[in-house]
């Protein structure tokens, strides 16, 4: 890339994009919502999380995303403040414009208008080379240095016969190792924010400052953790720092859900609330609440109504895109 573009190993680069309010442009309000930049009157916690994660993706960035909330945030970013970001998925699609909710990592909505359809080995080759700016992953446990566990909750048992078997790394290890920076989305639970993860699946800031560099990683590791209560960053030591709490969440409540002595920013802010435009767009991307509210109602209605509902949503989003 040309000289003036900061590189991943440029200390400036892994900084997260700002989330200050910007003047809405047409591309950030494609639905034509009234007063698009005003705080939404009603929004759910999940919508707040999706919007917060979306703002971790800046315009023109390549964003390595998975299913569920991760992809929802990527699609929201692309339809709002980051129209030139390009989405990358590990199954082999780059630059697609998904017209709706994604159910699996090879969901054919990820093929819609893709720039590249290739294989997984090539995607992760490029990831290892440092081609991607930001990744968004999930995890079951996390420690104060952002090391995550999505493999096993061992408890007093063993890896082979654990208390809870989780899905496994998927791409989360590879993304945390090599992606420019990584955002982790998790539930804020004391048992999950642990002093010692049962199994280290993906490398956060590892054991000590400089540990990642020693191992030769091109990625800068976790830059943010977004939970249902708060947003955390990481300080120069690689320790998690509480940056903001969601509206009406006291700092103490967050502390209670963390096993270690939590570092807290000098000025803990309140997480920026979603705008009217953002909430409207989210509801257009996922009108059936599959991701956002985790409800199954669209599947309960029977096959015919399901298929008609899905088709209708696709057409709606595609018409936005065509404009």
């Amino acid at each position, binding site marked *: 890339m040309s000289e003036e573009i900061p590189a991943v190993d440029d200390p400036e680069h892994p900084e997260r994009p700002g989330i200050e309010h910007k003047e809405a442009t047409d591309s950030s309000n494609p639905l034509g919502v009234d007063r698009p930049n005003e705080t939404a009157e009603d929004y759910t916690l999940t919508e707040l999380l999706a919007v917060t994660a979306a703002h971790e993706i800046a315009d023109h960035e390549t964003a390595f995303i998975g299913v569920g909330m991760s992809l929802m945030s990527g699609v929201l970013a692309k339809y709002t403040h980051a129209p030139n970001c390009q989405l990358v998925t590990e199954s082999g699609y780059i630059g697609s414009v998904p017209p709706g909710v994604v159910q699996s990592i090879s969901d*054919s909505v990820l093929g819609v208008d893709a720039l590249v*359809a290739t*294989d997984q080995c090539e995607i992760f080759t490029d990831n290892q080379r440092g081609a991607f700016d930001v990744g968004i992953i999930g995890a079951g446990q996390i420690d104060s240095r952002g090391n995550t566990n999505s493999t096993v909750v061992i408890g007093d048992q063993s890896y082979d016969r654990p208390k809870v078997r989780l899905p496994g790394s998927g791409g989360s290890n590879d993304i945390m190792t090599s992606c420019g920076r990584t955002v982790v989305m998790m539930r804020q639970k004391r048992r999950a924010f642990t002093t010692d993860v049962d199994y280290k699946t993906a490398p956060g800031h590892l054991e000590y400052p400089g540990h990642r560099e020693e191992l030769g990683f091109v990625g800068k590791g976790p830059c943010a953790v977004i939970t249902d209560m708060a947003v955390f960053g990481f300080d120069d030591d690689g320790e998690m720092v509480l940056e903001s709490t969601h509206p009406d969440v006291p700092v103490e409540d967050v502390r209670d859900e963390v096993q270690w002595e939590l570092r807290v920013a000098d000025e803990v802010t309140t997480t920026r609330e979603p705008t009217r435009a953002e909430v409207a767009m989210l509801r257009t991307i996922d009108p059936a609440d599959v991701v956002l509210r985790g409800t199954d109602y669209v599947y309960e209605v029977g096959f015919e109504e399901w298929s008609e509902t899905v088709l209708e949503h696709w057409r709606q989003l595609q018409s936005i895109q065509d404009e």
Partner: protein
Amino acid sequence: MTLQNTGTDHRDGTDDEPNGREKITDLETAIADYVHDGSSVAFGGMGGRDPEAAAREIVRQKKTGLTVLDDARTTLLDIMVGAGCVDEYVGSWVGTSLISQGHNIRNAVENEIPHHLQMRDVSNFGSSLMFLAGAMDVPFVPTRSMLGTDIPEHNDALEIIDDPFGSGDKLTLVPAERPDVAIIHVQRCDPLGNAQIHGNVVNDHLKARAAEHTIITCEEIVSTDEIRKTPELTRIPFYTVDAVAEVPFGSHPWHCYGRYYADLPFYREYGLRSQNREDFLEWLEEWIIPHEDYLEKIGADRLETLERMEHEINAPAEVRS
């Protein structure tokens, strides 16, 4: 070594098939011929273009003691584990998606029901590389993934070394895996086994190459002349393929890019009914049937709707090739 020799005994002279040896068979025969008790198997696709019909046929034929060598794996593994076919899984991710949770897999790992499932974890890239090494016939390929984590701690097959070129970097060596059989579902394939993939490829080109034997199931068998029109899409060449079976809707209930969308209500029902053992065994009874009967049970209207949905978002194959 078996990935070789489209040729046969050279001395047996001419062969009248103009395009070489044909490999067409049916699904039942392909599974019976290549998947044996104790086999290691890799499946293609990844929550899309998965060989679901082939996996159900493995269950129907009551294969046991299988090792699944794979990347991320969803429904078909959960069904096979619940049915008792699988002893070990080597791969990166198990579970399903938003609306189903891999209940059988958890039950096997945590509770040994129906029996214990041995897990050997790698990352997704690790999974690609174990097939790449197998495809290349080298003992390993190095990566930076998995360093500093517990993945190599619990997977003895992985080695951590110092870069022999003296950079001071550490590297994870991912050993080659060579499944006894790879089963890949694609949109189209010719009788020789030239398999074309529309859309994303995941690790299918590598699995077919790494495996000792490869079964292609496809939506449609097309002529070799048709393949020649878009040679760039032939991601799996004839010389890696042993059997070709035409299995329309072979990925149902998952997606097949350009052909049909995922049947998510069906999939959700599986998620609900796999939550307890009794319901799951009933589900097996109901759905582990020959593929033709399965499709009939799903119903032509429903299948047609899934096709219509996919064509709404992705151009159908006849337009694309």
